């Protein structure tokens, strides 16, 4: 009898904190999800429904708002511009950083530490601080209103952090592999291309996924560099759309939902890569 009681008490003692834990976590989950759900529901209502009962379930669901957005050519051109910028920046960051990280992880030369510290200076200030000076130089180069300028600026600001992550990973690949490849007649580039890069695929995927998200969501660089609306990226276009159609809440909600969709889908598929990229950067930095 006594034993049973103790068991019971232990079980309660164990279960009570668990219950409390889940309670807190569920409340936070609600706080995170409710704002997102409200906007998605809003997108599925007509303009009138949005006024009469804004917080109810969208039954029956109206898909017209989405159709309206998907039928505007500007949405597709924004999507295309965002894609071009994202792919360009990601390719830029991957190429530039893997080349440089290889040297810093594998080669010896005078002034190596100095060069490395110089390239990681970018970690000390975010892009917002430097956007004004960058604008001056982009203008001087006559690159205003080009997607190339956005790509180059995003790449430049991606160098410091991603190089740090990749160097850490490259350093952990055993030196013997390099010696062996040299004995077999590889040169530095051959080792880099045929052995190091294939081995570093997880790390490359991680910084690639992270750069994609950062580039996709970047507002400030396109805002400053792109004036012509045919070049706008999605965040920029979303901001302008919200200003223009602020009276039609349902339509705005649909636009916001559609422009968030790619990032969310990508996140669900590449969560592991994004997370490992972020944590590798922060824990090494």
């Amino acid at each position, binding site marked *: 009898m006594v034993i049973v009681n103790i068991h019971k008490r232990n079980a309660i003692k164990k279960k009570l904190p668990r219950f409390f834990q889940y309670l807190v976590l569920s409340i*936070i989950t609600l706080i995170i999800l409710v704002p997102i759900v409200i906007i998605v529901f809003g997108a599925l209502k007509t303009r009138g429904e949005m006024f009469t009962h804004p917080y109810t379930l969208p039954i029956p669901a109206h898909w017209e708002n989405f159709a309206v957005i998907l039928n505007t050519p500007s949405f597709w051109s924004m999507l295309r511009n965002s894609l071009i910028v994202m792919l360009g920046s990601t390719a830029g960051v991957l190429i530039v950083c893997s080349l*440089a990280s290889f040297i810093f992880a594998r080669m010896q030369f005078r002034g190596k530490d100095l060069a490395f510290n110089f390239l990681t200076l970018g970690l000390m*200030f975010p892009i917002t601080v430097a956007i004004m000076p960058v604008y001056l130089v982009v203008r001087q180069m006559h690159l205003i209103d080009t997607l190339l300028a956005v790509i180059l600026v995003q790449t430049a600001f991606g160098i410091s952090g991603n190089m740090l992550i990749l160097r850490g990973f490259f350093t952990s690949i055993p030196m013997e592999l390099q010696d062996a490849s040299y004995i077999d007649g590889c040169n530095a580039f051959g080792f*880099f291309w045929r052995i190091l890069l294939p081995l570093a695929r997880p790390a490359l995927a991680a910084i690639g996924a992270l750069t994609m998200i950062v580039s996709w969501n970047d507002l400030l660089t396109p805002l400053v560099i792109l004036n012509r609306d045919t070049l706008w990226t999605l965040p920029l276009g979303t901001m302008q759309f919200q200003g223009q159609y602020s009276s039609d809440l349902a339509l705005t909600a649909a636009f916001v939902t559609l422009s968030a969709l790619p990032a*969310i889908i990508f996140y669900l598929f590449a969560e592991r890569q994004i997370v490992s990229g972020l944590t590798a950067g922060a824990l090494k930095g």
Partner: protein
Amino acid sequence: MNISQGRRDPLKWQQRINSPRRVQDHLAIFLFLLPAFVIFLLFIIYPIFRAVYFSLFNWNGMGPATVFVGLNNFKQILTDQVFMKAIGNCLLIVILSLAIQLPLALMLAIMVGRDLPGRPFFRAIFFMPYVLSEVITAIIWMGLFSPDPERGFINALLVLIPGVHAQNFLGDMNQVLACVFIVLSWKYFGLHMLLYMAGLQNIPKEIEEAAMIDGANRWQTVRNVTIPLLGSTIRTTILLSVLGSLTQFNLIWIMTRGGPVNASEVMSTYMYRYAFIRFQLGYGSAVALVMLAICLVFSVMYLRLARQPDYLGGI
């Protein structure tokens, strides 16, 4: 002094430098570093020097800068009440982030721990706002904060409480900064929590168990074992959080444009207004440099001061 040896050394050096392997390596080092240096110099370092030059002029961006004003721009910035207000707001956001957002993230990370069932689910949900762009976050929350209970969900909830009226939120000078902070926390606490969870993953479970066996209760274990072992992660998140708070632009610009009446003005919105709305590029450059100086001073000082022994390195 052995002359012959002195003569042989340069020879050896010559041989070494000319050996095919060496030449190839040097060429590789040069070519591999070239893209990184070119882009970095061209788009980060050179612009800053350009900004230093233009900050000495009164320049509206048309034609060459000719009106030299020396350090006048800086003098004007540092005596401008609005800029002081912006710095004050930035500092307030920094303090709130350090006092509320980070401890909350740490608490949740410890709560989820290593093996709570449903851990991946909570992690995915909490991190989702970080993946949404700041534009989308801002638009979502502008809707929630709408002063009209028919449109703003928060007010719709508030008016259900008897005696409580709908609030102005983003339109109220005394509430706007708190609202901005809530949105910032909503978006970024998941990032910090994620980093703490990754840090926790690196701490061997046995250390905490040993403390428990020695008679420490849960709270003592967390305070004296877990948190000190998370030291380097916590230091990183503090740096990220402070730099992020000091330079926050997107959310505030979209939601309030620094208003009402400069109540939510921060350094970056101030800079953007002068540089890109009023097109005073000389003055804007000076503001950017002041921001840069603040960030650099903080980063360097913090990295100096916070370089404590890394507990995990010793394990």
